[in-house]
């Protein structure tokens, strides 16, 4: 028997590591033309669907605020939003009894009642509205405000009809103080003190024992500010299923024991910010002895998209991003095929023979499909937003203002949403091993819950839970507008409000994806290929 020299290769092997697996999976992905085309389709579909709303929008031809469409021709004109110090659109419409306050000082008052008429009130233009009367967030109290201009900085201590004593500042800030409704037998003492840029709010039930409710910094407050009393009562909104009716309300507050430190001048009554589509635009005050009676309307609060103010006619950003679900369908198909086609062709055996550590194979696939989907999502959202804004402008319509950082979060978030969704679908595909079944599951868990919610097919409440617990919760990352506890409005998915905070909803999706990926790795390791 001859001696055999076993074969020795002189081929230089490359680096060992996870990176080469990612490289291999990327090569796999980019060399199937159908998958590349599907990703381009995902981008195009999400852009095209997103442009349907701005391209067909004619809402600027309607006057908001309940006035109904004008009888003449359509004269679209972009309204001027009042922006708060934080850049968000706000309602700043209330009756203000004020005088200047120079330098540091404080204002104290006792509120003995806050009431509103039920029935009809009249607006400044003489139109009458059938009003349900006083609102939960009808409010009155003391306020220190930068100046009389709508949108200027402020801090206020107030009683409310349903939410007890609050300290609110700069439209979005809101802290609770004493609870319970105000009345003659149950008065509330309110105090604001200014020290530099710092304003501190206190409340008391008896004028002796005071509790600090909050301390806020209003940067850039001038030396002389306006201090005084205010009353505001927000528009009511009644949902009639798909539509809602709205109109102004009015309220009256009674104050006494008013004490403004260093006050020299006399009190001036003034309606701030009339004609914003919130409130009647009218108010009055009476001073008799030490007692002030202040009647006002309107609200001091952020505008919620789709509710009140000129925003009623504005194009909403979530209408432009609605095409994401179409992009997701295309991505679901690719993510499913990326793994299930390997099972169908038995190519998975070649893959696993080349990389026996199976968990790493799935990890590499997840990174590739996730990265590709992220890029598609970012491109789709960015192009849709840019074109959607342009089309809205060119048709004489206007966008509801959104801070730049929010737009950035929406664009990046759309990428993240699609990336994590793709990883979830890939993992389901690795478990199910069948393309059609995987795609069906993807549509059931992502598209159906989302679609039923945004089209208001599901009853309010049910859609909330669907968008909380299913993977479709991840769409919350596309929520452009925050919900404000201090603004009563119908916050539904159909209006672009998701029940979860953007990152909380995204976390729910991530949790689903993590569970599915763990299950897929477990089964991939355990089963014969």
């Amino acid at each position: 028997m001859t001696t055999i020299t076993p074969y020795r290769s002189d081929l230089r092997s490359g680096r060992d590591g996870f990176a080469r697996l990612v490289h291999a999976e990327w090569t796999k992905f980019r060399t199937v033309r159908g998958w590349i085309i599907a990703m381009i389709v995902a981008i195009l579909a999400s852009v095209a669907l997103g442009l349907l709303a701005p391209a067909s929008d004619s809402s600027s031809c309607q006057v908001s605020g309940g006035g109904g469409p004008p009888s003449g021709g359509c004269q679209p004109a972009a309204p001027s939003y009042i922006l708060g110090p934080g850049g968000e659109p706000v309602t700043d419409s209330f009756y203000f009894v004020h005088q200047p306050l120079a330098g540091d000082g404080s204002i104290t008052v006792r509120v003995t009642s806050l009431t509103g008429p039920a029935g009809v009130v009249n607006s400044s233009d003489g139109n009458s509205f059938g009003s349900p009367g006083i609102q939960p967030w009808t409010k009155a109290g003391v306020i220190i405000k930068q100046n009389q201009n709508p949108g200027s900085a402020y801090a206020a201590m107030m009683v409310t009809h349903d939410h007890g004593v609050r300290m609110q500042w700069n439209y979005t800030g809101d802290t609770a103080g004493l609870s319970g409704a105000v009345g003659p037998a149950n008065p509330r003492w309110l105090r604001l003190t200014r020290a530099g840029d710092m304003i501190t709010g206190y409340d008391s039930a008896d004028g002796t024992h005071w509790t600090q409710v909050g301390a806020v910094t209003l940067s850039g407050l001038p030396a002389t500010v306006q201090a005084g009393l205010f009353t505001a009562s927000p528009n009511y909104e009644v949902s009639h299923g798909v539509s809602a009716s709205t109109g102004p309300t009015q309220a009256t507050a009674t104050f006494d024991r008013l004490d403004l430190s260093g006050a020299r001048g006399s009190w001036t009554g003034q309606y701030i910010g009339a004609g914003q589509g919130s409130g009647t635009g009218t108010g009055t005050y009476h001073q008799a002895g030490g007692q002030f009676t202040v009647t006002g309307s309107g609200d001091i609060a952020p505008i919620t998209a789709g509710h009140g103010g000129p925003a009623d006619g504005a194009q909403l950003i979530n209408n432009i991003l609605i095409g994401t679900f179409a992009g997701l369908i295309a991505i679901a198909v690719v993510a499913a095929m990326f793994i299930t086609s390997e099972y169908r062709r038995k190519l998975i055996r070649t893959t696993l023979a080349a990389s026996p550590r199976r968990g790493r194979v799935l990890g590499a696939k997840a990174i590739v499909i996730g990265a590709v989907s992220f890029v598609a999502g970012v491109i789709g959202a960015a192009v849709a937003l840019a074109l959607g804004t342009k089309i809205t402008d060119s048709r004489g319509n206007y966008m509801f203002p959104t801070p730049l950082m929010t737009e950035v979060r929406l664009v990046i978030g759309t990428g993240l949403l699609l990336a994590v969704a793709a990883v979830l679908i890939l993992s389901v595909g690795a478990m199910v091993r069948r393309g059609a079944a995987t795609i069906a599951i993807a549509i059931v868990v992502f598209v159906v819950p989302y679609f039923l919610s945004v089209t208001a097919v599901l009853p309010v409440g049910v859609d909330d839970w669907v968008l909380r617990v299913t993977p479709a919760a991840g769409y919350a990352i596309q929520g452009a507008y925050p919900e404000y506890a201090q603004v009563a409005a119908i916050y539904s998915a159909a209006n672009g409000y998701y029940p979860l905070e953007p990152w909380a909803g995204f976390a729910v999706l991530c949790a689903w994806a993590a569970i599915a990926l763990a299950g897929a790795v477990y089964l991939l390791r355990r089963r014969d290929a």
Partner: protein
Amino acid sequence: MEATIEVAGLRKRFGAAQALDGMTFSVLPGQVTGFVGPNGAGKSTTMRIIIGLDAADDGTALIGGQPYHSLRRPLSQVGALLDAGALQPSRRARNHLLWLAHSQGLGADRVREVMSLVGLTSVAKRKAGGYSLGMRQRLGIAGALLGDPAILMMDEPFNGMDPEGIVWMRTFLRSLAAQGRAVLVSSHLMGELQDTADHLVVVGRGKVIADTSVASLIQAASGDRVEVRTAARTQAMTVLAHAGATVAVTDADLLTVSGLSSERIVAALIDGGVRFAEVRAHRATLEEAYMELTRDSVEFLAETARQEAAS
């Protein structure tokens, strides 16, 4: 590290079927080892277990002393062609090898080398879905050779090949073994391995029936039989039987004689005045040797089938 496959005591059950029942053998470097047995004997299952695709219920399969899953660059130690059809049809053939190369840290240069090695350079850019089965076999072999491994394992590589391809494949496998590689080639047709395999592992019903060199297998199957070609068949039979031989008629003018050496047969025929054309030692074909070996297992299968049909 010795370039070998060592399989010891593999057992694997798929539902009610015992696919492997103590499969044990080794594959040595520098030769082509044929892995033969009827369909369902457990050849493909064994190969899948060797490269870690299926888990054995019991037993071990080692590559150079290590389990496959612990290999860091598996394709540079074992190249396997299990299923030539395992391709994404819309992916170009060259790109199929490219991702495989990337998974091993290899580049496009190596892909070009192996494609030229198997003669696919001119069709490298075609979609794999458009390849004939013979071309797919070549593509699969190119994939197995990517990492330039010392061990090659191929499941039915002759399937779908035209005669020219079969000749090419035989030569190619022999040249790989001549380089010192261990080459394991499975087939359910022994004839395909004639003139190709040096060593045979014959399997049936999930275990090894014979593990032997081709030469000694044929030797054993041939026995000490001698063939006599003569026109005077009856006369020759009488004479030879008289001399103490056992005689069987193989053909109209051909007798197979056992129990006498060639010399004594010639002497007996001359003494008896019988004319003959040729006396030669009988040499069994590989096919015959195989049939003899697997007869038991085939009979068993037939018997089982009858019992199952009856019950």
